[in-house]
């Protein structure tokens, strides 16, 4: 217990120190001595490059927003850089494409978005936890078959996951799980990459001495893991969580095979249906669906950015 508390204190102190260092660094950067200030030319080039990249990354999204308000014929016939109708008619244009989208998804669009959130959220949560546990196990314990297990899991990073969908279907059917939420959640919460990250993090950021000390204090292994290790690995877990969340959100082949009930579909499946049905030409509505469909992910990214950036930092240094 005392060890855990000590760790807690220590890590909090470390975080404080880091923040302070950051601040100092920022300040420094802003008032470097004149001789060290970059020349105007360097500055201009840097800004030009960064702005150019900004346009490259944002332009397609901007275009998609514009396109999402257009009818099929406006897509080809109007200026691609701006709305086809006057701003006063815009709400009507949006409402029309939104209507098409809702019609196409048989009124289930938001239900599917909710499903996607559930699938991604639960898979990422469970997946992160089991990956970190396994990573910790292989990093800190010797058990029989460990090297084999590591080898097999790492090898599976090379296996195209999409091709396993059909056999997964067979196995899940044998367990009477097809056409349930679990048939999507279970496959999505296993990630060899997540395991790999968990392992690397555990290897590099969990000190053996600390574990020994806790053991001498009489803490059980479970308690050590849940109270000490998880806390140390928290930033790393955010990275794994994010990775799993996005991977699940993007997956459409698995739900395509696993579920047939309308009420269980994720939103990407609806979008994919629009793409794959060649006769669906209402591309503006498709763009609207795509944008509304990724909105929750973007909100999540922006909302959690402080956390996952810390996670990425931890990962990058240790990776």
């Amino acid at each position: 217990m005392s060890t855990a508390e000590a760790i807690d204190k220590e890590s909090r102190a470390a975080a404080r120190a880091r923040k302070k260092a950051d601040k100092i660094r920022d300040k420094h950067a802003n008032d470097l001595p004149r001789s060290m200030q970059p020349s105007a030319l360097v500055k201009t080039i840097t800004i030009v490059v960064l702005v150019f990249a900004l346009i490259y990354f944002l332009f397609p999204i901007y275009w998609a927003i514009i396109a999402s308000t257009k009818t099929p014929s406006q897509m080809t016939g109007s200026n691609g850089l701006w709305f086809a109708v006057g701003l006063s008619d815009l709400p009507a244009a949006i409402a029309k494409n939104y209507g098409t989208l809702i019609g196409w998804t048989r009124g289930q669009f938001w239900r599917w978005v909710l499903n996607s959130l559930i699938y991604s959220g639960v898979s990422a949560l469970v997946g992160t936890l089991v990956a970190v546990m396994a990573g910790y196990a292989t990093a800190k314990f010797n058990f029989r078959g460990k090297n084999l297990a590591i080898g097999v899991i790492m090898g599976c990073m090379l296996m195209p996951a999409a091709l396993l969908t059909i056999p997964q279907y067979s196995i899940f059917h044998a367990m009477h799980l097809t056409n349930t939420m679990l048939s999507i959640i279970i496959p999505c919460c296993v990630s060899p990459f997540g395991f790999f990250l968990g392992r690397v993090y555990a290897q590099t950021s969990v000190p053996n001495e600390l574990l020994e000390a806790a053991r001498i204090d009489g803490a059980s292994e479970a308690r050590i893991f849940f109270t000490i290790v998880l806390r140390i690995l928290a930033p790393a877990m955010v990275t794994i969580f994010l990775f799993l969340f996005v991977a699940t959100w993007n997956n459409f082949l698995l739900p395509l095979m696993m579920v047939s009930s309308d009420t269980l579909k994720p939103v990407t499946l609806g979008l994919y249906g629009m793409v794959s049905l060649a006769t669906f030409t209402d591309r503006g509505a498709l763009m609207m669906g795509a944008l509304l469909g990724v909105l929750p992910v973007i909100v999540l990214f922006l909302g959690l950015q402080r956390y996952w950036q810390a996670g990425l930092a931890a990962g990058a240094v240790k990776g």
Partner: protein
Amino acid sequence: MTATTKTAKTGVARRAAKPKASDAAKRENRTGWAFMAPFGILFALVFILPIIWAIYSSFFRQVTTGGGAYGGGELVNKFVGLQNFQYVVTSGAFWAGVGRVVLYTLVQVPVMIIAALALAMLIDSYIVKHITAFRLSYFLPYAIPGVVASIIWVYLYNGQISPIVKGLAAIGIKVNFFGDNVVLGSMANITTWTFTGYNMLIFLAALQAIPHDLYEAARIDGANGFQIAMKIKLPNVRAAALLAMLLSIVGTIQLFNEPQVMSISDPSISKSYTPMMMALNTSQGTLTPGGDGPASAVAIVMALIAGVLAVVYTLVERKVNAE
């Protein structure tokens, strides 16, 4: 890998130090497996069993039985030995697909990693203030699902829709993003657009973890910004870069979404354009021989090739590291 052996050694040391070594080892074995179990069980369910199934099925082909022009209305699994593998390794279409994917990987991955690294360094250079907006904007495409990203870009490549193509045409530059030699590059651009920001963030995180005193010291020694970037920053993000590279290679080998979506606009993109596409289309019977047997064989051969490439990469990386 080195880390594995290190841990193993400490384990051995610990065991030797304790009097009841075997008891401790047993306990450690139990604890290790207890932590491993949840992942292990799920992993077996989602990877091991399906892979065994895939390997098993790769020795079979689905053929009709019962004679007649249409067969007896039932497909049966016929054991064909290594025939499916023979089909794959002698298939020109398969190797053409492998060639495309390898070329794609050789060009796209370095371009993306270098771009990500360059952007990260520029942002970290503190030449520009208010970097958060840049950082987030670069990262935004990562949130867009691959299929959707591909659709957006397909429209941006399209001569009738795209303001880019139209704009270029207006100033006298005619581009065809679906041209024979261009189309692979067009796909690579989609991948680059989606993942550069993600990689950039990883590099940025690594850069920001570099202790500031290192820069100070270098500056006092008279190093300029460029020299600092090359001599201090680059070596410090090396580990992150190598990992990002490996993951990108694994990703591009499974190239599927981009060519699949682009084939709507460019029917000359065949059903076997990449090994992944070939495997899925074989499984769905839009290529012949079709069915799960030949599809599994395609997947297995491709996984082996990916394994070899990964090993080669690791060896090269080690050699470079050793020098």
